[in-house]
């Protein structure tokens, strides 16, 4: 019974596809999958905006939105209806294009943002047997389409013909290119251990239990380091605080989408959040066991529930970090990427190799942990070296 509940979406897909003639079945199947992704993840986005506003409100000792519920009734749903008026508002707002803007590129930028982000979902396994395409080079595909997001950001910044947009776009390019390297290098360790780029294969490798605890990669020294590196890099890739320099509202208004309004702005917003979910989904798949359960006695819970709850948990950590950390300066951002993240990711690759060649021995645990911890301590000290923290002196303002 639990198994049929677990496979309910797969069964439904087969049932729906059985209505169309044999020749059209692959097409129908992919259309249904696209419809599924297009309906589920924007829905998750809508709920996340409320969670974010309420969570940040609570962290700042406020209530957050708590008014909008079901229209024409007194039912408020704790404000969880807020996303509907927000959506209606952005749909009905005037779409203003600056006179000096490059109109075609300005129009295309949000579309170019959304398409690669949506494509990335094609390879993520949301549950058991629930990836849209079982693609052998899935991880490579994910990073390849993810690279196209930078193009849309620069299109938006360039075509707006606004200095703040261009500044934001240039910051975004610098940041995304810098952080893509530790992102990919930290993912490489998993590929080394599993020996496959297929994301379903990677999840299957983690779906084993010893003493009732799953073999998630995050429970190994190299996996933990890889996960933390991946997590920080994915924060930077999705332009979230403390890496929100491309859209730093206190410095450059809204960065590359300063000149966007109405639904195009909403599309950028949607694209950013969907990109964030995709990259979190990849992080879950690589290090947190994808759709598997952490302990063997909870395997009866449907796989997609596990995936979604892990996704929401990490989104909550993102919100938590957003409410805690202030924005980095540009040079701090670059120093952190090139002087800390990149060396640590390279050392982590080495550690993954050592882990593999030491075999199933228990000694590999202390050895790998010691190398990673030592590297972390040394690199962290190097990063904080030469930093004279103290009272700031303003040379000209006094």
């Amino acid at each position, binding site marked *: 019974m639990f198994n049929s509940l677990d496979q309910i979406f797969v069964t439904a897909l087969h049932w729906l596809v059985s209505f169309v003639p044999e020749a059209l079945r692959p097409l129908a199947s992919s259309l249904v999958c696209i419809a599924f992704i297009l309906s589920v993840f924007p829905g998750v986005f809508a709920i996340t905006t409320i969670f974010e506003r309420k*969570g940040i409100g*609570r*962290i*700042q*000792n*406020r*209530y957050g939105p708590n008014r909008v519920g079901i229209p024409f009734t007194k039912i408020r749903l704790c404000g969880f209806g807020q996303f509907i008026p927000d959506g209606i508002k952005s749909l009905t707002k005037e779409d203003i294009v600056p006179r000096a803007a490059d109109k075609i590129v300005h129009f295309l930028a949000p579309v170019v943002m959304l398409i690669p982000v949506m494509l990335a979902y094609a390879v993520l396994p949301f549950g058991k047997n629930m990836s849209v395409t079982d693609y052998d080079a899935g991880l490579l595909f994910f990073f390849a389409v993810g690279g196209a997001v930078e193009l849309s950001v620069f299109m938006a910044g360039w075509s707006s013909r606004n200095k703040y947009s261009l500044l934001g776009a240039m910051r975004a390019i610098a940041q995304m290119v810098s952080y893509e390297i530790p992102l990919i290098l930290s993912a490489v360790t998993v590929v080394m251990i599993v020996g496959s780029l297929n994301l379903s294969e990677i999840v299957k490798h983690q779906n084993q239990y010893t003493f009732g605890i799953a073999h998630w990669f995050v429970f190994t020294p190299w996996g933990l380091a890889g996960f933390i590196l991946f997590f920080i890099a994915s924060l930077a890739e999705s332009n979230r605080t403390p890496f929100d320099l491309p859209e730093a509202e206190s410095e450059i208004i809204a960065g590359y989408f300063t000149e966007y309004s109405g639904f195009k702005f909403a599309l950028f917003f949607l694209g950013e959040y969907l990109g964030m979910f995709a990259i979190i989904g990849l992080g879950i798949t690589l290090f947190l066991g994808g759709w598997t359960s952490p302990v063997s006695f909870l395997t009866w819970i449907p796989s997609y529930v596990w995936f979604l709850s892990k996704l929401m948990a990490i989104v909550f950590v993102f919100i*938590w*970090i957003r*409410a*805690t*950390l202030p924005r980095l300066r540009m040079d701090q951002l670059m120093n952190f990427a090139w002087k*800390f993240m990149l060396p640590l990711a390279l050392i982590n690759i080495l550690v993954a190799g050592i882990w593999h060649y030491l075999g199933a021995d228990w000694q590999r645990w202390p050895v790998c942990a010691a190398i990673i911890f030592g590297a*972390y*301590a040394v*690199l*962290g*000290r190097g*990063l*904080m070296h030469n930093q004279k923290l103290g009272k700031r002196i303003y040379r000209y303002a006094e």
Partner: protein
Amino acid sequence: MLGEQIIKGMAVTARNFFGSYVSKERLTTVQYPEEHLVPKENTRQFPFLVYDGDDWEKGLRCVACQICEKECPPKCIYIVKSKDKKPDYKGQPQLYPLTFDIDISVCMSCQICVEVCPFESIKMDTKFELSTGDRFGGLLISKDKLAKSNGYYQRIHPQDAADSDAVIAAEKAKAEAKAKAAAEAKAKAATAAMAAPPAAAPAPPANPGQKS
């Protein structure tokens, strides 16, 4: 070590997050339309007219002296004086305003009218939910709506109301004492005149004599 302070900061925000669900004191937000903050003693929004007693038309303290109308910086007060007079709280006949309008779309809540009023008549109200669909008529407040009892004033500004009541009581006492003194002097004069008519009789002609 790197990251220590980040963990400390995360702990602080987590404590705030969970604390806001546990203790109500943390939340400073007032859920406005349902809840209201108690206004501060010195809250002031727009002026109103104070009246004594129960009947607002009879008890209105305003004597239509038009000082507030003249002093009002944005000129939002409009007064028409009455032709006849009616007695005020001292029993003295005074004018009263036939029309007293305040355009609160113009009023800037400066309280100058309150400062200049010699009759403790115009005071500041604490009501602020005055939005209306009619932006001309709805914001022009006439005498009948402006008149509010002294009891209301004592409720919204207890300290100021006590002060102004003391001023009025002092004025009244002074007026009564004067009237009493005048009455006594009159009575004395009458008794003196009765007791010594010959002594008093030459006195009146003496005055013109002195003057000339």
